[in-house]
Structure formats: structure tokens, C-alpha cells
């Protein structure tokens, strides 16, 4: 699979943030809902799966199975967790962006 270096796509970044912020409750459906509620992005569940798979293959998240429920027809969930690398990358991206935005004249973001 062609991973474009270690760069994260915009969508991948969103998914990664979602995984990080959902902490131990991150799996396909919850990530999808999070994105739709918090980021106003309505995406298909298959796209979420695809994104998660890619993140895992880049080593930014790890996963385990568990939590079968009746609404899922007895199927278990695959929970995702952000890895150390994932956190580092997320941080780097954030810092890089702020650095870049700060160089834009007459433009500043207040970080609280």
C-alpha cells in the first residue's frame, strides 16, 4: 500500500485527533459520530474504517477487539488507541502549523 511518507492527510489527521480525544471509546461508529458532531464532517463508515486501517499501518494507532453487544448482532468492536508515535506526530503537526500561521502577517490565533 502506498503510504505517502509519514505525512498525514487532512482526513487522516481528523481521524487521528478523534481517536486521541475519544480515548478508550474509539471504534468505527464512535469516530464517525464524533467527526459528524464535532467537526461537522459527514463521512461514510467505510471511509472511517479505511482511514483507521491506514493509520494503523503507519503505526500511529493500535487496536484490539472487544465489546460485542446485541445491537451489533453479536459482533465485537475493534477499539483503537493512539500510540506514542501518534501522539508525537500530532504534536509536531500542531507546532508546525502554529509556527507557520504565526508568520502570516496580521493574523494570529490565540491559544488558550
Amino acid at each position, binding site marked *: 500500500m502506498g503510504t505517502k511518507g509519514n505525512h498525514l492527510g487532512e482526513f487522516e489527521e481528523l481521524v487521528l485527533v478523534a481517536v486521541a480525544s475519544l480515548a478508550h471509546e474509539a471504534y*468505527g*461508529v464512535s469516530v464517525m459520530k464524533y467527526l459528524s458532531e464535532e467537526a461537522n464532517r459527514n463521512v461514510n*463508515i*467505510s471511509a472511517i*474504517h479505511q482511514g483507521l486501517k491506514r493509520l494503523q499501518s503507519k503505526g500511529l494507532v493500535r487496536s484490539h477487539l472487544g465489546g460485542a453487544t446485541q445491537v*451489533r448482532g453479536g459482533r465485537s468492536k475493534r477499539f483503537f488507541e493512539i500510540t506514542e508515535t501518534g501522539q508525537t506526530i500530532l504534536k509536531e503537526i500542531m507546532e508546525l502549523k502554529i509556527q507557520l500561521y504565526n508568520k502570516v502577517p496580521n493574523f494570529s490565533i490565540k491559544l488558550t
Partner: protein
Amino acid sequence: MINPQPPSWIQRFLNWYCASELLDEIQGDALELYTERSGAHGKLKADLWYIYDILRFFRLSNMKRSSNLRKPDQWDILIHSTLKIASRNAGRNKWLFSVKMVSLSLCLSFALLLAAFVLQEYTYDQHITDHQSIYRVGTKATCLGETEEFANAPELLSEALKKIPEIQYATRVTLWGGLMHVFTAGEKSYTQEVGMIVEEEFASLFDLNFIQGNSKMLNEPDNIVLTESTARKFFGDENPVGKIITLNNGFWLDVAGVIEDPQPTSHLQFDMLVSRSSFDVQPTWDELAGYTYCKVNKGVSLEVLETKIAQVYDDHLPEITKDLDINEQDTYTPILQNITSIHLNNGLKNDVANTRNVVNLHFLIILSVVFFLSGFINFLNLSIADISSHLKQIGVLQIIGGSSSGIAQSILANTILGIVMLIPLTSLFFIIGTYAAEIFLDITIAQSILMSKLFLLLIVVFFGVHFLSSKVCYLIISKSFNLLVALKGKLGVQFSGIGIRESLLTLQLSFSIVMIALILIMVDQFNFISQADTGYKDKQTLIIRTPVTNYLSGISTFEESLRNLNGVQKVSMSSLGMDSESDGSYFSEIETNEGMKNGYFNYHSWGFDFLDLLQLELIEGRNFDRSRSTDRSGKVFLVNERAIEKYGWQDVIGKKIYYGQDQTKYGHVIGVVRDFNTASMYKEIEPLIIGLTNDKSWDSYVYVKLDPIHSANLLTDIEEVYFDHFESVPMDWEYLDARLANLYYQDTQLRDIFKIGLFISLMVSCLGIFSISALMLILRTKEMSIRKVVGARSYDLFYLHIKNFIKFTLLAAVCSSPLVYYLSGYWLNNFAYRIDLNVSYFVIPCLLTLLIILITSGVHGLRSSKVDLLKTLNEG
């Protein structure tokens, strides 16, 4: 409350494609969303949404096989080990494996051979550069409301065509056919060679390659150009150029050049070319002689060309119909044939080109496809049988490999192994096939065809489809494979492939039935031909060709000496060759009660004894009579019934006939002969005028009727007499019945190909039935035992076993009947005289197939009826 469920089909679809390790999360998430949506938006919307989601999940990375194939290390190991397993399996089941491979490669190579042959027939004359712009001009004559189509054109047409600006050049070719010409080179004489009279343009038109000399030689008088093989035959290794060849013992020709042999895929086959200027004959408009070819400029449309040439015909109409009363409606128009289409068009009269009946080719194409399919079907059948009996092994393999794609890979490995075996086997059969075709069927397949892009493409397609077939195989199995069941050794609870295999079997059986039926019909038609009333007796009759030489004065003495031989009943000369080649229509004028009429007649001549020799029947008037001086003068004719019918001739005896435009041949009718076939049964009997042979008009053939009981030396005696008269000219003779059988050689060829095909097809389907039958025996042993326990008798069990096969034969019979009806009608339409179809042609093949099935599956049926119930029941 029970949760609402999405449609089951989409669930099955998901289960089918989705890799099992991903199934949990995908289906789980999708179902969770479904439950939520069905609460919020209702079931319908949720259903649609769910379907959409599942379809979106349908991507390569979620699919069963690809998820593992992507990992290169595992792939390497698996391909290595599975290949090993596949070849070990093959080794363990040598019999099944070799049967599978041999039958598939037999079918494939047979299909490929047929394809190569068909391809060759369709690419005739395409080796000529600019073949698109070369045409042959024939003539369509409408006379007295009857239309006749000739391959040849008026002699002077080529001259007139040269004046049309759209035409680059035109040329006329005359073939020496019918008569037996004697070529003498040095001491030896030859008679089998075909010579053509041509002009310089012929060489450029047909792309002739001169090895010695050049095309200018064909303009000089008394020049002859030999083909390479003829030159070698006549002069050995000596340089032929400058040597002299004597034609018919009175005409000297200088060998001026040597050309390469004509391509085997050329519609004109010849051994030598003689320059037109060697012959001091003034060409005319009123004789259709020779074949006119022309090459048109690039971009000239066929319509334009046709109108231009039609104009030429119109302009010269008075000359074409010279001295004949022209009816207002009589027309002469050109028939334009592209040079590449001549070979597959055998409907024209006076055509000497090497042609083939296109109906036969269509049959060969069908046969090729059928063979390809039945090879393919049989392979699938046997593969499924093989795999289903190895389910346990596959199960073990899965556990070791720990992957659901184990079957896929083991099948892939099987396929690779198969192809590795298949290619050399198929090539071997193919090569044997080409030699066999050359020896037994007289079919040569040119190297250039085998190397052609189209043929190579065909091979790729053939093997590609085979590869796909193994993929289909995989799909069938992976859909229904259950690891646990397989490991427990319970075959066939969920999977046996029986359903698919039975429908494949039905298809294959239909093929067999169709082939048996077609062969029955062909054999019957040939019997019909050989026993049909041709109007004469062909047994115990020799037909000897006589050379055109200056021995002519001796021909009646030759006849006389033959007559004196012990064992010879009758001898007579005739121009009738009893084949279509010597068939020619001539314009004649006849006297009727309504005045003079003209039309096309076949004209032939024969001697006094010919009627008795062939036991032809006279229905009116009298035969030629030696004792009458009017008869000896040659001014008397016989006609056949057909001539009377066609022209509504009444009181025919004594009526005058003018034959030929010069009116030198005229006379009156003295008798009517009952219709007889002068050519093959493809054609209707034509109106015929028969004149009397005399010493001045030599005829090509001498017919010799032998006593049914004659000495074994008679043939050598006849040969001695022949050499006494014709010295060194080799004797060219045949039995009449053999000569007649030869007329149908294209169709006998087809019949023979079908026979071989039938043999292969039957063998292959027997194997298929046998393997299915064997599998059923294994699957149902326990069932049979239980049935026996509850009181079933042996023959009940036997019937139970073969019931299915009978059902499928009947189904196949129903499927195949319309096909048989259509195909046989198509083939029989070739013949003007043919058998009628009846029910037996449909019933007998089915009964035969049924019999074969009973025999092949009956073995297992018997075994199944004699099942040892204690043993089987104890095992379980």
C-alpha cells in the same frame, strides 16, 4: 423486542466477500448504525442506508483473498509449499490428474487445430500486397429469364478495362483445365502439371517472385516460366533457363525464368506460366474464356467500379451476343469479387479457383468452440471432484497456514501446475494433430498461420479462459467451504458441487448428442449419395484421361485395341469428366414449335457405345448408330429430359440445334436421354446437349467397362496398350466410383473431422460422468445402507443411483434437438439432392448417449446397490 434485521441477501453478500478477520468490525459497525437508524428513520431508510454502507465496504482491501496475498513473505512461502502440495496431490492421484490434463489438452489442441485451419481458410490471398484493391471480374448473364453466374468474363474485357482511368491495370489469365496436356522435358513426359497463359501484368498483380528472369519474359512469345518445384521435377539440379519444353509433342517453349511456388493459401494454384503471345488466337467478345483480374487505384469505391465496368458490358452488348437473337430482357453484368473473397465463394460456374464451401467452415468454427467449451467444462468437473475429495486436506492446510485464503492458493498452485503440464501436452497433441491432418485428411496448415498475430491471440485467449475457469472453481468452493465440516470428514453436507457439476454435465451431454446426431445425418447423406439413382452405373468402370497430342489419329485405334483385350466389355470416349471441373455452359440456339430460342446448355460428346456402357436410359427416339452415315457425319444430337422441361420443348425429335456461334456445329435431335448427374449432387441436373465424338473432335476421357470377373493382369494389359499408343506419356486413370466419391471430399473431410471430434468428446464426457458417479457413490454410501436397512431392494438402489443421470440425459436431449434441427438443415441445404430429417435422427443419438451413461455410471450403481451395510454403518 426483536431487533429489526437488514435484508438477508446483503448480509450474505457481505459474508461472501469480506475477509473473516475484518468481518467483526465491519458488520458490527454497520449493524450498530443500522439499529440506530431504524429507530430514528424507519426500517426502509435504514435498509437502504445499510445496503449502501455494505457496498461502500466492498473494496479490494476488505476482500477475502487479497488481504493475505499482499504480504510478500507469506505469499512466497505459501506459493512454494502449496505448489509442492499440489504436485504431491497430483502424484498421489496420478490417474485422475493425468486424465484431467490429457482430456483438457486434447480438447484444447483439437480446438486450436480447427481454429488454425479455419483461420487459414479465411486468410486466403491476403499475402498479396494491395489485396484490397485487386478484383476478379465475372459475368452475370440473364438469358431467357434465367440467370447464370460465371467466374469468367469475355476475352476482350481486360483490354477494355485498361481504358478505365480508375483501373491501374487489368489482365487476363487462362487456365489449362479439363484437357490433358503433355509437357516433355528431355526424355520424360509429364501430364499432371497445371499451366496458365498469362501476360506480364500477372506477375505484379500476384506478387510473383522471380528467382531467375523477370516479368518481361511473360511478354515474349514462346516463353515458359516454371515454378521452383516444377523446375526441380523437370530438370533436377540443372539450370532450367534456356532449356526447351515440348508441349503436346508439337510446340516448343523456351524456359525463360523460374518463380517461387505459389503460396498454398492462394486461390490460383499452378506449376507453369506461358506467355500469351505464344498463342496466335484472336480474342473475341463473344466467348467467356479466361479470368479477368484488375487492380484499381487507391480510394476507388466498389460502386463506382461496378457502374464503370457495367457500362463496358453495355457498350459491347452487341459483340457479346453476336449473331444471336437478343431478347429485350437479356442482360450481361459484371460480378466483382475481391481477390480475398474468391476462395470462400464456390457458387460461380466455370470457376477453377481453389474454393471452399463456407458452410463447412461455419461447422468447423462451431466445432472448435464446442471443443473448447467441453474441455473447459470437463476440467471444471474433474477439478471440483478432485478438490471435494480433498476437503479434509484443505482443512488441515488451513489450520497450518491459519488463513482463509489457503484454498485460493492451493487452487492457484493447482492451476499453475496445470498450466505447466498443459502447455507441453497441448503443443505435443497439436503437433501430432498437424501431421495427422496432413497425412489422413490432406489438410496442411501453413507456418505463417501459426505465427500470425490472430492465432497467437487465440492461444492467449484459450489459456486465459482456462485460468479464469480455475478462478470460478475457487469461487464455487470458497462460497461453500466449511472448515469444521471438512475436518470432521463429512463430505458434501454443505458442499459437493453436485448442482453445478450436473448442469455442466447436461451441457456436455448436449454437445455429445448434437455431434452424434450430425454424424448420423452426414453418414446417411453420404450413403444416400452413393446409392442414389444418378441415372447410370458406375461400378467396374475405368476412366482414362487421354493426352492432347499429335497421336490423335491413333485414338480410335487405341479404343479398338482396348476393346480387343480379354475382360473388357465396352470402350467409349467422352468429354464427360463426371466432375464439376469439366462442366461448361455454352450458348446454343434451338428450334422449337414457337420458333428459335436460345439459352445456355451444357455440351458434351460421346461415342456410339457410351449409352450402353453407363447403362443410361433412352426415353424417346434412338441412340447414335454406327451404321448410319448421317450419324457418322456428326450432325445428330441427343438431349436430356431437363433440356426439354426447361425450354418447354415439344416434339423434340428432328428439331434443329445450332451449337456454338460459328454455326458449324448444327444438327437435329434424334433422342432423349433420361436425366443423369453429370456432376456432384450439390447441383441440379442441367440441360444437356450430347453430340457424337469423332476423330476430329478429341475428347478427354476414355471409359472402359470391365467384366465383373477379370484377370488380375487386366490393368497392366490396359497400361501396355496405352503406352503402345502414347509412348512415354504417363497414364492417368481412376475407377469411376472413386472419382465420384472424390467430388465430395470437402464434406467427407468434414465428416472425418467430426468423427474424430465425436471420439474425443465422448471420451471426455464419459470421464466426466464416471467421476461424478464415483463421487455420488462415496457421498451416499451411508444413505444407501440405511435405505437397505429399511427394506430397499438392490435394484431400487441401482435405480436411485442412475435416476439422476437419466434425468440429465433427457434434459440434454431437449436442449440439443433444436440445435440438431437447425445445424443439419444448414448443412443439408448444400445438396440439391438430400435426405429428409425424421424423428430417428433425434431419438437415436439420445438413446446412444443414454446407453453410454448407463454403462459408465452403472458400475457405480451396481456397487452402490450392493453396499455392505454392516461395515458402513459400523464405521459411523
